[in-house]
């Protein structure tokens, strides 16, 4: 289910892209599906979760060692850890895929091919460990997790992390030719809408599954995901109706995704009507945040910063307002509106601030290193002819009766 999100994301992004770059967008996403699972089982999972360190995991689980399927009575865990490894591997696949939307239309594919595994090991694994480290051992030991930061299914670790990395990537790459004077409207809105539907479906697995059990928490996460996305899509659509005059498909799709992003960190921590407030806030704020790129002059092609970074940040901070340990019978801190004071809100701010600084700096370094060696950007001519043809020697749409000879 979570795996299905990556092709869903490819449709969501690919439809928004221009027709000459859609296959490159698909390939950037599918590349994550090829490379990340292998990096994950070789070292990623171990670095992101194992041991009892403060900042990074050890190498105990590299090459899948220690992840057996022995039954519990034999001293094993019946494959629970192996299951966690594959489930969390899906998350690791989609995280760098999110960045692809920001670099669309101009990144050299070979540079992306190297960037993805490097980013997983150098950015995703450490940030993941800070919040979740030790959770599959004897309890949380990652320094942010120990301080009490909450991130149910990856608002900070996935969306804020990938969103700010996207901003770094955009700044290293530079803007597309002709932007912002020349418009780059979506080439196929039906693809975008289909991708949105698939993402929503996959997100149920993503959020509810993050309870790691078929329990009440999973049910509440399921419900939260359902209504937050609806509220955000509605909010974005209404903003557009008032501001621009029409309900647009892209507005609805963007709002749904912003809501899904925003409820991700709090899916297992908030209850009642809170997810609706989170969804409404995300839909409204993100619908304005996507305009920031024109003011800030950064060419975030498909609004990864405006939707994922902002959505993730809003959702993560709002846990500080709405976290409800009483409802879940949990041991985590309560949010401001549930009598918990400002403590949790401050922790959420800290975790996000640290992630933003680290991810931005590290992503910039990785990309500068690639830029200095093989280069990160296609030539101006390749950009104009389109990346499908120049990077992959394929065309997305061969329409008409013109035949191809066997060369």
């Amino acid at each position: 289910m979570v795996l299905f999100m990556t092709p869903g994301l490819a449709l969501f992004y690919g439809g928004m892209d221009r027709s000459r770059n859609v296959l490159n967008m698909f390939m950037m996403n599918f590349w994550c599906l090829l490379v990340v699972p292998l990096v994950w089982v070789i070292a990623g999972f171990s670095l992101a979760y194992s041991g009892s360190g403060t900042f990074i995991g050890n190498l105990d689980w590299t090459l899948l060692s220690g992840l057996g399927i022995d039954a519990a009575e034999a001293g094993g865990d019946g494959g629970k850890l192996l299951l966690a490894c594959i489930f969390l591997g899906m998350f690791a696949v989609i995280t760098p895929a999110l960045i692809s939307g920001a670099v669309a239309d101009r990144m050299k594919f070979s540079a992306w091919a190297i960037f993805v595994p490097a980013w997983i090991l150098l950015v995703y694994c450490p940030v993941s460990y800070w919040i979740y480290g030790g959770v599959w051992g004897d309890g949380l030991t990652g320094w942010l997790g120990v301080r009490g930061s909450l991130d149910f299914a990856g608002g900070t670790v996935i969306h804020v992390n990938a969103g700010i990395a996207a901003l770094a990537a955009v700044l290293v790459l530079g803007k597309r030719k002709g932007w912002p004077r020349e418009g780059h409207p979506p080439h196929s809105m039906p693809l975008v809408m289909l991708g949105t539907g698939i993402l929503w479906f996959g997100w149920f697995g993503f959020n509810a599954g993050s309870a790691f059990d078929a329990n009440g928490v999973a049910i509440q996460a399921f419900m939260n995901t359902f209504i937050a996305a609806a509220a955000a899509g509605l909010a974005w659509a209404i903003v557009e109706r008032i501001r621009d005059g029409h309900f647009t498909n892209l507005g609805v799709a963007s709002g749904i995704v912003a809501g899904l992003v925003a409820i991700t960190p709090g899916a297992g921590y908030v209850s009642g009507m809170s997810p609706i407030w989170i969804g409404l806030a995300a839909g409204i704020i993100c619908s304005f945040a996507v305009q920031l790129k024109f003011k800030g002059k950064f060419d975030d092609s498909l609004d990864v910063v405006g939707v994922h970074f902002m959505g993730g940040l809003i959702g993560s901070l709002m846990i500080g307002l709405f976290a409800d340990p009483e409802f879940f019978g949990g041991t985590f801190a309560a949010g401001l509106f549930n009598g918990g004071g400002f403590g949790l809100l401050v922790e959420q701010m800290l975790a996000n601030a640290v992630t933003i600084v680290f991810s931005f700096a590290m992503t910039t370094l990785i990309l500068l290193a690639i830029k200095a060696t093989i280069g990160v950007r296609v030539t101006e001519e390749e950009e104009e002819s389109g990346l499908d043809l120049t990077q992959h020697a394929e065309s997305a749409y061969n329409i008409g009766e013109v035949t191809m000879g066997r060369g």
Partner: protein
Amino acid sequence: MKLVTAVIKPFKVDDVKVALKEAGITGMTITEVKGFGRQGGHTETYRGTEYQVDFLPKVKIEAIVDDGDVSSVVDAIAAAANTDKIGDGKVWVTSVDELVRIRTGETGSAAI
């Protein structure tokens, strides 16, 4: 022989086809084209950003007719494609020097 060319609104194609058949035309060619005239284009909005689309979709119709049929054909197109609103398009006539029917090798008016 004359070539009658018309650029019209896409949804008027069927009306024009019927009118031309009634006027006795035996063949025509249509092409989907884009362009602008006095009507100008339209705007589309994506994520709050407005894009100006200058070239609007139109259909171009071409038919080769005998000199004597020109005025009835032009009138038929003009009547069928008219909506009284801006953007209805244009009809124009040009001379044709030679014409060959490929299958039979007939030339001139016999090939129409």
